[in-house]
């Protein structure tokens, strides 16, 4: 647990650093608000409409795919550590079972991947 305690201290230092920086620049720097400076930057044109418009559904698809693959990755980490560790890992008599299970796992993953591909999720137009 020592290690995580050190992470906690480090986190505190970082938060302090960020806050100090933000406050320092706020105090030291000049503040002169003008109407033009307060406008959103749009290459010198007067801004047209709001920037928060609906965007392409592709981004949602990528986010969902990411979720699937990331969860699958999280499953792989403990397996990768334990699979060939020897002592304290997967026992020798279970080794081939685990190997078979992982093959099935990769197979289902491949099916999901091919399905997404044929559905055209990876197409960017």
């Amino acid at each position, binding site marked *: 647990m020592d290690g995580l305690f050190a992470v906690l201290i480090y986190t505190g230092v970082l938060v302090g650093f960020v806050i100090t920086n933000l406050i320092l620049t706020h105090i030291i720097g000049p503040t002169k608000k003008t109407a033009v*400076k307060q406008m959103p930057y749009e290459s010198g044109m007067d801004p047209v409409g709001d920037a928060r*418009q609906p965007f392409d559904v592709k981004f949602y698809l990528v986010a969902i795919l990411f979720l699937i693959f990331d969860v699958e990755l999280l499953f792989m980490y403990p397996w990768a550590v334990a699979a060939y560790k020897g002592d304290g890992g997967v026992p020798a008599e279970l080794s081939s079972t685990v190997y078979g299970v992982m093959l099935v796992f990769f197979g289902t993953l491949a099916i999901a991947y091919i399905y997404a591909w044929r559905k055209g999720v990876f197409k960017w137009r």
Partner: protein
Amino acid sequence: MSWEFFLVTLITIGVAFGGLMGTIAYLILVERRLAAFIQDRYGPNRVGWAGLLQPIADGAKFLLKEDVIPGYVNKTLYILGPSIAVFTAMAGFAIVPFGPVDQAPSWMRFVIAPDVNIGMIYIFCVGSLGVYGVILGGWASNNKYSSLGSMRASAQVVSYEIPLGMSIIGVVLMTSSLSLNDILMHQAKFGILGWNVWTQPLALLIFFVSALAETNRLPFDLSECEQELVGGFHTEYSSMKFALYFLGEYAHIITVCFLTAILFFGGWQFPLIAEADSAYLGATLVKVVVLLTKVLLIILLIMFIRWTIPRFRFDQLMNLAWLGLIPMAALNILVVMTAKQFDWPIWTLPLGSLAIFVAAGLIGTSGKFIVSDQTVDFGESPEGYAHVHS
């Protein structure tokens, strides 16, 4: 928790944090001089001797300039954006060993958080959080360039997260540990031939490419490409908040280079001068220098790549991740686990990597699978090609 541990931790944090800051400041100078050299111009050479004081001048200027917060932004999120970006990038460094951990002097350690056995998972957790800094900053700015930039960045970072994590699995299978120091020691035991780069060349390639994309470096910096999006997600940021984004980016690069050096190039291990059992006077220092040299070389490589390779198109970028890197990484895991399961000799691993690489190249260039999928048809959308192609 003893006071001694607390004190040693504070000293280590001081050394690491100071070193990180100084390195970032001078890396920016090095990058600017390098860019100038490659583009046949001078670069910053006025402040101090040959521009050596430039980082200090830059820092002072960042503090002294006006901190503009435009009127249309969501103020809380606008301030939170760069804070999260720099915080997550720096926090990742907590478990990275920057020297031989078990030979450290008594008053400091060579890693901020010792014995964290989930090392790699911690780095990926914190690294994934980094995307929030970009999304929040871009969305809160309420600026069209920023919005487009942050959307691109989120899709890109999220996509490249997967090959990045997958490429590590092969290395973890080889060493059966997630702790960076264990992985390092596992390689150091066998000398230069034990480096993971020999057994996992494909994993190194995937890791490095994904890391470039994760850090938004140039061949993949679609989120802030100047020609289309002005500044991308940090268009509306000024003074210190802008600097925080940059600090974050460079801290991310340094962490990634440390990871590459430790995971694939044996960390502080080098033949003859820095072996696992070398115990001559000053061996610790030599090991630190060797590790830092490796890291610096990788950073220089990244910089050369930035000023050499032109930017990708966005569909190419996404295809590279989803149709290229992810299947390759999965196949690489399959090869490594099969080799481990059936005790294949060690030389089958690089051969497997090579086979996957060549097969992927052949399939990719044959034009049967990817290119035919990518017919660009502008006629479909009602507004024609004038609508925003994100």
